[in-house]
């Protein structure tokens, strides 16, 4: 799928203090800081500037602004952003999803309803940073949370895990958090010390499931009551 963008953010000049928090959290890097012009209201030297075409209505800026200096406006003409998976080589898309360990046809961004294949197609089409993927697909511009990790995994699997943060001091993303599959050693076994340390969890069983082995659950357990 894709994202229908219905709103755009606007900076209220007289309230903006140029603190840059909005710049640091925008998933599509649609905001920068510049010097305030003499004819603009407000007292601080710096002011945020919005590039409307890159604003995908994520509203992170609205949430983080301490001065209530951002408002959202409805667009007269909503627009749609997305990546056509048919434009990419299906074998390459499949291989990249498999290498990243994300479902190809399953939804990864639940907001824009973007599949793993669509995200992989965007990477293969030249989107080599999280913000570039967001601009190409609309993913990561809704709740901005759920699809965060799979997108970073896809980039790493495609050899772009070293993409610099943009802006450098920003925090629209940091890095790949720990995953269960990281605990599996080269011998395909989880060390006993970890299984013991987290004995309250069916870790070994869940890891088999995450790798596609469902044998222990067949026939399926009956639901109760």
């Amino acid at each position, binding site marked *: 799928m894709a994202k229908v963008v219905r709103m755009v953010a606007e900076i209220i000049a007289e309230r903006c203090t140029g603190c840059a928090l909005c710049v640091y959290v925008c998933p599509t890097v649609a905001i920068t800081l510049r010097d305030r012009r003499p004819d603009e209201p407000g007292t601080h030297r710096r002011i945020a500037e919005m590039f409307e075409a890159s604003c995908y209505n994520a509203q992170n800026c609205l*949430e983080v602004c301490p001065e209530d200096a951002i408002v959202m406006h409805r667009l007269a003409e909503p627009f749609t952003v997305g990546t056509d998976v048919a434009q990419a080589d299906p074998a390459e898309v499949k291989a990249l999803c498999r290498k990243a360990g994300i479902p190809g046809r399953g939804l990864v961004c639940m907001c824009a309803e973007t599949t793993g294949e669509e995200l992989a197609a965007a990477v293969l089409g030249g989107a080599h940073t999280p913000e570039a993927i967001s601009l190409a697909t609309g993913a990561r511009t809704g709740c901005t949370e759920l699809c965060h990790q799979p997108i970073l995994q896809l980039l790493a699997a495609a050899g772009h895990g070293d993409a610099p943060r943009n802006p450098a001091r920003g925090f629209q993303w*940091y890095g790949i958090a720990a995953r269960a599959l990281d605990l599996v050693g080269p011998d395909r076994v989880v060390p006993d010390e970890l299984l013991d340390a987290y004995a*309250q969890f069916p870790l070994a069983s869940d890891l088999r499931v995450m790798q596609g082995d469902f044998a222990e659950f067949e026939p399926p357990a009956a639901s*109760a009551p």
Partner: protein
Amino acid sequence: MTGLRAPMTPPALQRTWTGRDPASVVRMRAAELPGIVALPVRSIDPSLPAPIWSADASLGPTDLDVVRRRTREALQQADWTRIEPRSTVNLIANPHGFFLCGEAYLVMLEETQRHLVAKRECTVRLRIAESMGHIENPDWMRIYDLRNRFGDAEECPQIGRGVEIDTRVGPFWLTRDLFSADHFVHTHVAEMREGYLHRMIDRLHKPFGMGYTRLETRSAYHFGWGPRTGQLVARAVFDSDYVQQRYAGSIVLDTSPEGVIGVDADLDLDALNARITTGVLRHYGTLMRLMAEIDDVIVVFDGHGCHMYAYGGGIAFDCLMYGQVDFLDLDNLALLKGFASRLPDTPGLTMEFNPAIKAQIMNYMAGGVPYTMMTRRLPTYLVDGPAAEWLIDDPASPWLGERAHIAPDLPAAITAARAATGSDHLIVFDSTPGALHVSEPLGQLLLERAPAVAEHVRTHALPKWLTQRGLATHRPA
């Protein structure tokens, strides 16, 4: 209070942090619809303990002094000696606490601040761990005047600056401002939300894997761990040096679906978790399993909380959304599709949305959480007006406008949903505690089925849930 009764008055809609005022635009509440009745939770489970406080006087006492006294007692019994004199302490709160228990949660926070300042000679600041995305939370800072009441109070969004920590299983990122102090105190309101994720394993630890963390950690919790293992993230973060160097203790408002039943505090989070979990399984289990008895239902959202975080009768909508599966039984895989790159062919292993849900109506519902996957297959109705426009413009539901039907008013939405589904069963999630607002036929069905479900939970399900968690010999707090 037994049997079906006249509808209760649902909690008033509050102004949100975005400045929206749903009370001024919602023309009719679902509880005002003809044929809607209240099904008291106590009719379903007469064994529930009496609340010490409830938001509704028909359910229990509304006097907050009891909560204050019980909080002071709990505080005095707990060990706070990790806090040195003249140190700074972040008292970490969360929007769910204000949403579910309002003034009672506020009182618990206030008493905790006073106790620690008096006994440990420290500075205590309130820090609110904001929840996912842009949920239209009521503006708790202004509603409860938190800066004046606590002196130093700040909201800390999950998109804010992070801090990377090392854990035994690898790196995670936490919300830096929550932990920017010498110590922190963990607060919680016990209830049954997101059970399909945390599976009631280490329940009280969950904010360390979700609410207190940055986007990276939350996303990994959902996508990087198994269907019964997400809470390992929370456990690993809690056990980390970074967290343990700052952790000073926990305090919890214990609840039943009717309101607050106690206050408990402990430095030992495992011991506290064992007591609270035992109680939650006992007090919410029957109501949750009763959801599996519903074969067809139209869901009406009519309060704060987005979709799976909307509440009715003391339980969250997700208890119905995945109600066909006993996900508290750890023998059930209950695999959400996002957890595995390959899915099983065998029916029953993956957990889909409950097929009993035939349609959904949004009279008022907060945005912020993705849910439009359900609109792909479910007739969805919005009640015309500003509240519908807010949902259509919500960043997390960009396709809603293309899929939802717009009804001129709530009765028309009900009529359309009934005609489309043939169902006479309505259930309302309007934040009313202690009773489900349902259509009378659904109320009668649930009343008929409740005794057998309660018996099954008492004799089979509850003992199994407790045994699976090593709690068979524990008593609730």
